């Protein structure tokens, strides 16, 4: 019974943690404002949404998600090229992920 109580407390902690303070680790959502950054040079809103969806799904297969500001705009293309194979990214998907990261970096 005591073990079950410990387990229940741990579950409560997990749920509690999930309900607060998560935004700082979450990549920014795609908004019309984000799509307009750099005068839309990073791609249209549909492409940016696809890029974000792929970023948050494929990249966490191997590692936790880095902040988009953790690397420079010059470093990101090389990093994505290096990992595209492992993440099963096709060329268009690779482009969408890069477009999203570069757009999100400017925010």
């Amino acid at each position: 019974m005591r073990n079950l109580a410990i387990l229940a407390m741990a579950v409560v902690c997990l749920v509690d943690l999930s309900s607060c303070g998560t935004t700082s680790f979450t990549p920014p959502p795609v908004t019309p404002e984000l799509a307009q950054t750099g005068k839309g040079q990073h791609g249209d809103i549909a492409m940016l949404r696809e890029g974000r969806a792929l970023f948050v799904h494929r990249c966490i297969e191997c590692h936790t998600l880095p902040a988009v500001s953790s690397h420079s705009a010059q470093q990101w293309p090389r990093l994505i090229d290096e990992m595209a194979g492992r993440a099963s990214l096709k060329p268009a998907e690779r482009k969408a992920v890069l477009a999203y990261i570069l757009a999100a970096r400017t925010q």
Partner: protein
Amino acid sequence: MEPGTSRSDGFPAAGGIRRARFLVFILLLSILPSISVFGGVRRFTFLYEANTSARGSLELENWVTWQRATGPDRFDQVDFRHELEYGVTDKFQVSIYLADWFYERDREHSGFAYSDSAIELIYNLTNPVVDPIGLSIYGELRAGDRLIELESKLIAQKNFGPLILAYNATLEAVWEGSDLAEREGEFSQALGASYEVSPRISVGIELLHESVFPEWRDEEGIRNLFVGPNVSYRHRNWFVTVTALAQATDTDSEPDFQLRTIFGVGL
């Protein structure tokens, strides 16, 4: 069911194992030329994570679990699993357990035996990074020598930057024996935390609580608790994760110590 949580009394000849290995080999040869991407890293070995494999990815995972019990029912058992994992879509993953087999040694006998094969399906509902909590549902059908098992699981996960928290609730129903007359149910819960100390290395802890219901009754009140650390290393298209669990309860028929290693490689 986790490998090794059910023990069989049958010890078929080594020919069965050789046939299973040969089938694995042929299957791999037929698939290798067409696919070369990675399914995903495991940070835990006694828990599942909510994220599913990328669409089109294929991965081979080899599991080895050593269990040791030192009480009156003393035994050593080493379980092996060879699993192929395929991403059907970004949210739906299928795995085949090509063969679960084991080596067992106790007071009366020792030897190898084939246990079972299985199919496992996982559907991802929400993402552990962008949604309040990442959720997946899991179903498994297992069949072997005098064994049928159904298992369902709810997988929850939340990523907080480099920290990953995971929770699994699992319900199992087992029919075994010569005419499948022996029945057993089990409800287990598992909690895990894993911290990424570098892009290649994670360390963490896993906690597993089991409630066992022989003949689907709770007359014996069997409760088992295991806890222990884990470490995971990945590089290019492979990873290895190791967990050591010690029993925190006092159930003689359960292992006092378990060490599980999962080695995965993208094909």
